[in-house]
């Protein structure tokens, strides 16, 4: 019985494969080409559309985990409202722009969907308990990439140090000399810090010593 079944599946599969390998005797080459082009445009366009649709603040906030925790903390920070009205939304900082890294991050995000289903952080208490772990993930990634997402907008070379306050000017000049990266100092700029943040920071710096920029 099982033999028959597998043989039948194999037959069907090889039949399909055979049909794909053989030249078409029924459809014209032009028709195949045209339908291929149309299908290609629709599929590639659809892929990019889905990629962009999941790369918006609205999409992120469609989960209450994001809206009620990280987004409410983000409101009122310098990246949300400022004198020129230029905003950085969730994906600007949390999704890389180069295609390869973007794809990797998008695939990683499937794990986030899994935890959404599990309800890992579906209450404020659960979120606060996990905050140190989640924050450390972001800090580690930012250190490893030399704060790539910050630098999409904040270019060290484009800093006008004369327009910064004396405190910022001194520290930025120092940071550039020491080869520090943005996240080394700017933790908790858009979200609240976790309890025990400074201890976690020291441990992270120790474990990643020499891993960032030369």
């Amino acid at each position, binding site marked *: 019985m099982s033999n028959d079944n597998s043989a039948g599946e194999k037959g069907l599969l090889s039949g399909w494969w055979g049909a794909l390998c053989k030249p078409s005797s029924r459809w014209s080459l032009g028709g195949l080409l045209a339908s291929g082009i149309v299908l290609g445009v629709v599929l590639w366009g659809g892929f990019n559309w889905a990629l962009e649709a999941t790369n918006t603040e609205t999409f992120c906030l469609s989960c209450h985990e994001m809206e009620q925790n990280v987004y409410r903390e983000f409101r009122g*920070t310098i990246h949300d409202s400022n004198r020129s009205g230029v905003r950085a939304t969730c994906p600007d900082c949390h999704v890389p722009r180069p295609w390869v890294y973007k794809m990797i991050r998008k695939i990683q995000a499937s794990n986030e969907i899994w935890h959404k289903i599990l309800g890992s952080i579906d209450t404020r208490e659960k979120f606060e308990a996990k905050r140190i772990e989640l924050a450390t993930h972001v800090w580690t990634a930012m250190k490893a990439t030399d704060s790539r997402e910050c630098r999409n907008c904040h270019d060290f070379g484009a800093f006008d140090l004369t327009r910064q306050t004396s405190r910022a000017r001194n520290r930025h000049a120092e940071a550039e000399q020491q080869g520090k990266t943005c996240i080394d100092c700017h933790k908790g700029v858009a979200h609240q810090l976790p*309890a025990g943040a400074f201890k976690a920071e020291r441990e992270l710096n120790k474990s990643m010593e020499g891993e960032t920029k030369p």
Partner: protein
Amino acid sequence: MKTKIKAIALALALALGFGVLGAAAGAADVKSLRPTEANQPDAPPAIFKVVEGAKHDRAYRQQPPMVPHSIDKYETDIKVNQCLRCHEWPFSDQEKAPKISDMHYIDRNGIRQDTVNGNRYFCKQCHVPQVDAKPLVDNKFQPATLNTNLR
């Protein structure tokens, strides 16, 4: 009977009308200490920038030092106190920031601890930044540093 009701209604209407007029006249007479009319909403407060990088002198010996930078972005709650990230030892050495005075480590029993005491945890209760606002009323206060009689 009908004329009586009519008369009462007329009297009431007149009384109410005069009352409204009287109230309007009254509001104009009231002098407000604020620049806006007494029956108008207050003008929005002026916006002043925090003075950055200035050294604020103490006006008297026990005055908590004032903060020469803006602090609105620094979180102070049960989880973290971002002031301590630069001003507590050993961060103060690394960040070249003024160190918290040792008095802040003494607990209510007078025993020195290794962490900032809970009584002193909320830095912004005493240490505040300054804006370049002029005093609203005249003030004859003189800092103790100008009082030469003392020394």
